[in-house]
């Protein structure tokens, strides 16, 4: 179940944990690749687990992907609020 919280200055812990942002980007085939960039997930394989804070129907809560087990999930990423989807 989503865990509701009262947000103050503290931010809820998220999963996965922080990657090493200080690592130097490497150049692969002429393109810059940051340490935080990873290959795509594969179809037919398990979706990576995560825990993320969210705004949902007037409340703030953390959600785990696992709690949607048994349901179809559409997970959509987008570059930023106030843009289209």
């Amino acid at each position, binding site marked *: 179940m989503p865990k509701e919280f009262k947000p103050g200055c503290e931010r809820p812990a*998220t999963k996965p944990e922080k990657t090493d942002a200080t690592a130097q980007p490497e150049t692969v085939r002429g393109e810059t690749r940051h340490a935080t960039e990873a290959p795509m997930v594969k179809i037919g394989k398990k979706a990576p687990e995560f825990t993320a804070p969210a*705004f949902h*129907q007037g409340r703030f809560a953390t959600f785990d992907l696992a709690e949607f087990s048994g349901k179809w*999930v559409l997970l959509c*990423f987008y570059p*930023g*609020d106030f843009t289209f989807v």
Partner: protein
Amino acid sequence: MSTDSMFAHKMWNDHELSKMVGGGVPFPMLSDPGGRIGTLYGVYDGDAGVDTRGRFIIDPDGVVQGFEVLTPPVGRNVAETLRQVQAFQLVRESKGTQATPSGWRPGKPTLKPGPDLVGKVWEVWKTDMAFD
């Protein structure tokens, strides 16, 4: 999900999206601080520091059935996404005995893969059926 904070999500919902969708956004607006989850899914753009337009269909077993990723200037086709979900649901309910050819929509015939179908698809699925 975006790299914006949940507070920014609230502002977007309250000041814009709720004017487009009655009652506001019905599903969780997830926050991805630092793009860690986007990194896990391979859609985080480290140069711009944002998640790109990645869309993943995940089945009830937690398995990724499909995904689509677009660069920021082009939006997705929600109707096409829903069509794919309906197709995946039909295939799952049939326990893999049925398949949906290109352009399939609910109500159109499905294919029953097997030895008898080899070389016979043209008999049951005409080219114009792939277009609306």
